[in-house]
């Protein structure tokens, strides 16, 4: 029987936002054993981060209260101790790393200063030299190359993955017994995520610390956890060993979440929806044809702003997209996939090359000449927060483009059409008379889809439309896309970084790396037997549900 380090029993955290009391955490109990990882999984708003913040007591006084529960850390109840002893526990015995590596480091200090500050705070007796040595050692521990020189670097000189390494080094410098990691890899690319996860597992075996790992990704859970807790609306609905929870879920909610993971969706995919390329489509001219497209952003320097170099966001890309196909465009952040999508829609002017829609050249058209083509190709955006104009009713957002393109003879007719579009997206026609902030993220993405589809486009670019959504909502939207494609013979360019989604949704897959297309072909071929090294590396990095043995 391993010794328990953290034992939480019947913990409740209520948040008071002035008008109402929110039961963010409601009677949660679990224990973390020494040297083990406990993963908390759940959708957004399920209270998993609040649980973690309650453990380290970082929630603001006055807003948060704990009406019941005990948090026993080394047999000491953290809910009872005073602020001074809490400060000595935080950082030195319990450390925390956050989701966003961009904002959790102070941009005006070198990373060496920041690690040393944390060290000297908890070990005032430590000399500057000793602290520096310990900091360098911590950076080496997180496998930061050339760590002695890196001490002098500022956060902006590091990549996202390197910053997260620095955060982990900072957390580990004081050798904590418990590390709380709040979605530490969500903002990172899959290959970087794989490295960080490997690093964290390695550090755990060498230092013997425990981890409370918060994530929404079951793939990550499968790789990291010894024990799993599934949270739903503040309650812990299922706790157990990872093999047990992932393979034989007991609670219906866990079951439902696991079903919604794209990897599992792909397994149950309705074969009727997967439409092979018919002869007709193959012979006909491709709907969208790209030839040697370049989008270069000039880098300017000096007093006269002369161009010293180019940032080649899209570099010599040629691609054919046949009608009725779903083409997935995969790649890591910064590989130019979004820029390519925007260039096809002429939202970004290509530096050179040719983009043809239905055989007509689009590059070089003026805004006026472009207008009739605009209705034929539409875009759905990534961020549900900013994709709808917050000042306009949904009605205006939907009917204004219809009016410009002469769809519907009168305003009344357009309202009916817009209502139908919303109904198709499983929303209600009454929603026309609401503002965007009254909808959830998934609903906003549906409205964004409706806005694109009211113009009856031939071709829709979906830019990471599900990456900000929870898995169950993502599964519904993906299902909707497949239905729409079957209904309207719609052609989709689906930009994503999620390989699971690619396997589930797409017919063709295009892999991009540093502005160039590395590999393209039918999804089964690209994902099943990748030819290029980069594709192999990318696929290997994807956290899979199937457990490591």
């Amino acid at each position: 029987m391993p010794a328990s380090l953290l034992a939480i029993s019947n913990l409740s955290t209520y948040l008071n936002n002035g008008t109402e009391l929110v039961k963010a955490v409601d009677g949660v109990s679990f224990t973390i054993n020494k040297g083990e990882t406990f993963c908390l999984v759940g959708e957004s708003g399920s209270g998993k981060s609040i649980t973690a913040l309650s453990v380290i007591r970082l929630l603001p006084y006055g807003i948060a209260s704990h009406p019941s529960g005990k948090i026993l850390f080394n047999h000491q109840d953290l809910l009872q101790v005073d602020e001074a002893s809490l400060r000595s526990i935080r950082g030195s015995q319990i450390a925390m790393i956050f989701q966003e590596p961009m904002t959790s480091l102070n941009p005006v200090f070198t990373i060496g200063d920041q690690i040393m500050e944390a060290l000297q705070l908890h070990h005032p007796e430590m000399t500057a030299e000793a602290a520096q040595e310990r900091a360098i050692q911590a950076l080496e521990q997180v496998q930061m190359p050339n760590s002695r020189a890196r001490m002098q670097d500022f956060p902006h000189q590091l990549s996202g993955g390197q910053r997260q390494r620095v955060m982990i080094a900072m957390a580990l410098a004081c050798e904590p017994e418990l590390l709380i990691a709040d979605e530490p890899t969500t903002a990172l690319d899959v290959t970087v995520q794989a490295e960080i996860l490997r690093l964290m597992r390695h550090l755990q075996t060498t230092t013997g610390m425990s981890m409370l790992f918060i994530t929404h990704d079951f793939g990550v859970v499968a790789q990291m956890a010894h024990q799993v807790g599934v949270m739903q609306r503040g309650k812990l609905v299922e706790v157990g060993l990872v093999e047990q929870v992932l393979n034989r879920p007991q609670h219906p909610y866990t079951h439902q979440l696991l079903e919604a993971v794209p990897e599992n969706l792909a397994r149950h995919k309705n074969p009727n929806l997967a439409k092979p390329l018919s002869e007709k489509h193959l012979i006909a001219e491709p709907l969208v044809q790209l030839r040697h497209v370049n989008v270069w952003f000039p880098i300017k320097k000096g007093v006269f702003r002369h161009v010293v170099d180019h940032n080649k966001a899209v570099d010599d890309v040629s691609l054919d997209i046949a009608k009725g196909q779903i083409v997935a465009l995969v790649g890591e952040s910064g590989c130019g996939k979004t820029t390519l999508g925007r260039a096809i829609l002429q939202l970004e002017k290509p530096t050179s090359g040719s983009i043809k829609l239905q055989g007509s050249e689009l590059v070089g058209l003026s805004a006026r000449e472009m207008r009739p083509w605009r209705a034929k190709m539409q875009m759905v955006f990534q961020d549900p927060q900013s994709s709808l104009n917050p000042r306009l009713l949904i009605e205006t957002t939907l009917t204004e483009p219809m009016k410009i393109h002469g769809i519907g003879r009168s305003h009344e007719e357009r309202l009916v059409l817009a209502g139908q579009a919303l109904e198709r997206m499983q929303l209600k026609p009454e929603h026309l008379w609401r503002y965007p902030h009254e909808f959830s993220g998934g609903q906003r993405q549906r409205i964004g889809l409706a806005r694109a589809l009211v113009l009856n486009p031939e071709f829709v670019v979906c830019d990471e439309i599900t990456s900000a959504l929870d898995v169950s909502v993502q599964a519904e939207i993906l299902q909707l896309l497949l239905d729409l494609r079957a209904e309207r013979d719609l052609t989709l360019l689906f930009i994503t970084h999620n390989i699971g989604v690619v396997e589930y949704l797409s017919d063709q897959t295009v892999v991009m790396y540093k502005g160039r297309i590395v590999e393209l072909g039918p999804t089964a071929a690209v994902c099943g037997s990748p030819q290029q090294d980069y594709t192999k590396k990318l696929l290997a990095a994807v956290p899979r549900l199937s457990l490591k043995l």
Partner: protein
Amino acid sequence: MTKQQISQEHLSRRLLRKTLNGPGVSFALFWIGTLVICAVFAPFLANSMPLMMSKEGEISFPILRYLRTEDVAVLAAFFTIILLWVIPIKFKFRVNLALVVAVLAAVVVLANLYLKPPQLVIYDNFRTAAYTEVDWRVMPPIPYAPQDYLRSYGGTGLEAPLAAEADQQARIHLMGTEENGADVLSRMIHASRIALSIGIVATSISMILGIIIGGFMGYFSGIVDMLGMRLVEIFEAIPTLFLLLTFVAFFGSSLYMMMVIIGVTSWSGYARYIRAEFLKLRRQDYVQAAVAAGLPLRSILFRHMLPNGVAPLLVAASFGVASAILAEATLSFLGLGLVDDPSWGQMLNQSVTSANFNWWMAVFPGGAIFLTVFAYTLIGEAFRDAIDPNLSRAAGVQ
């Protein structure tokens, strides 16, 4: 169904309705409304001549004989706009017509100003037998014109409010008299014209210029932005007050010239605000979606971007109105303002320059300036809240 009815109204009408429901706006509107009434009907509210009199059985309207073209134009514009509001036509059409009428009135006033020399009126004549020995007469509520220095009474300068009445004289000055002997309340009423017009006209000119120039700078960026910013810097280098002084020295003082100069020199701040907002908004997904939907530039700029970027501008504008009023006051202080026409700023300066402190000379115009600036700020804030649906729904305003 009611929700649908409300939502189908025109965007600008919805904003107007929400603004009017904002907190404190009823007070602000009351004060601005009082000022508007004062400004429009100033000659009828405070004047030395009878509104109507009957002499030897013959009824006459002396006040109409002395109305200036300016007064007529303002009255005509006011009644036309009221009429437009009442008759049932399309809202958009109404707004446009009201704008046309306002512009016409402004043109008439300007043309009259430069074509006709001002009429000289000797107010003491109205206290002679020709106007007093009548069958009956109706006087305005305040029977003193702003430039009537009451010379026929002699030595009326700097009397405290109601002091003359306490002295058993046949005069009532609710707010006392100023150093030349004119009635302060009458001057206050006539000065509301200047306060209203200089603030609104100057700020409108600078806001329109600022929004257009800043909007193009922010939306197109690149070379347009570069040239625009140089223009902004040039205009920021011009000191408004010294330019005004120069113009006054060369061309004499004129209210309309001041409005234009204040307006033309102070747009750069608004342009900067709008440019910064538009640079940020341009990358927003909903603006990109509007471009992708092929919406015309006008709609992208003024429907999708401007309402989301206008909030800081409105706060700046409410201070702009205040600073325009103060700029006029400053000129008056330097003795370069309007010579004979009353203005609140000029009255405040009179109280500063006189030897002993006469509280009524400071409190009434000072209070009026304060209340006006306060009212504009309240309306600005209510408008900002109305534009933001998050706030207005939360506040229970539909």
